[in-house]
């Protein structure tokens, strides 16, 4: 067992884990934060994307012990109380999901894109930046629309940065 201490969605957590525990397992099984999904477990699909020290990563390909002393934000950590994060609101508004399995990873990736590329995102940029996220339902069209709208929404919503 190895001790791991990190901050998840603003709260400090410490636990003893088997070193082979993946960050995604730690989030889902130890912390019961089941919003982060496992789609492929082979680093391809992006359903497991969370923010590690403010950067989007595939949490199925990070050991929990590698996240020691880090700050992790998951899909559960971005809403402001009962109010959805602008990116979540945009996915709902623009039907950016069908089954919803890929959605937490899509939203965490989308927020990361805005953090890196700003609030005015063209379709080409969004499609290129989402290449690490697979969706088996939507055909991506509405996801791209939702990300563009969510990016604009984040510009108007000062609280959105506070979640990071």
């Amino acid at each position, binding site marked *: 067992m*190895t001790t791991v201490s990190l901050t998840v969605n603003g709260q400090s957590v410490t636990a003893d884990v*088997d*070193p*082979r525990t*993946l960050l995604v397992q730690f989030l889902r099984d130890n912390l019961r934060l089941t919003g982060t999904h496992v789609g492929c*477990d*082979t*680093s391809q699909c*992006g359903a497991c*994307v969370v923010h*590690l020290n403010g*950067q*989007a*990563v*595939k949490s199925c*390909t*990070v*050991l929990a*012990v*590698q996240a*020691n002393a880090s700050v992790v934000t998951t899909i559960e950590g971005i809403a402001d109380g009962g109010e959805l994060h602008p990116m979540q609101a945009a996915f709902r508004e623009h039907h950016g999901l069908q089954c919803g399995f890929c959605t937490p990873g899509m939203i965490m*990736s989308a927020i*990361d*894109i805005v953090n*890196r590329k700003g609030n005015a995102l063209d379709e080409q940029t969004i499609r290129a*930046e989402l*290449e*690490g*996220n697979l969706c088996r339902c939507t055909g991506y069209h509405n996801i791209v629309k939702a990300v563009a709208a969510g990016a604009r929404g984040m510009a108007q919503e000062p609280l959105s940065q506070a979640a990071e």
Partner: protein
Amino acid sequence: MYAFEYHRPTSVKEAASLAGQAEDMKFLAGGHTLLPTMKLRLAGPANLIDLGQIAELRGIERAGDALTIGAMMKHGEVANSAEVKQAVPALAEMAELIGDPHVRNRGTIGGSIANNDPSADYPAACLALNATIVTNQRKIAADDFFQGIFTTALEEGEIITHVSFPIPSQAAYAKFRNPASRYALVGVFVAKHADGVRVAVTGAGSNGVFRVQEMEQALSANFTPDALNGIVVAEDEMNSDIHADAAYRAHLVGVMARRAVEAATRA
């Protein structure tokens, strides 16, 4: 994944001494090759030595006519580094073509080079740029470092600390990506140095990354796309798999080399 013992050294010295004591160990960098391999139980080290907390393995520095990058620098950091963009823009562009944004936030230059995947991008950059791989024990020229698929000059327990790139006068990388995996189906890195042009090809060779002497001679005499006219690489040394057969790859080497020279001379 098989169980292992986890170690988190904070200096290269400590990592090397752990490696000396621990039996059946592997270093862990970004984990974006090693962890998937361990999940598949193709690797099952008893000891995993995480290089992630070692500050000396980080940093990007330009000194004179060389650019030096720490082994633990992530692909995204190299792609976005003002220093790299200024000194060797082709290297920043190459790093931006690796995988997807999430992969680039974890994968490192040291891990990519140590792994020497036959379709990885960095080996081509190192070979064309005539890089020196610096380890905790010695300096290894790229020409001696890459020794065939997944094989390098590294000894057991040897740690890459830095990679040093001489700054070329012109360079470019042209990559034909496998659209699913995003690895190179064929990638060609071309670099013009004071003493001649170097051309390195990844993704194509059945023995991993390689240089194309005939192209290098032609381009050293005349650094234009037309200098490549009529030069073909031998099909029987090309890789063949479900993604592309040897003939297709051999053809792509020519096409990508031309595109790389076009890009290098346009800039």
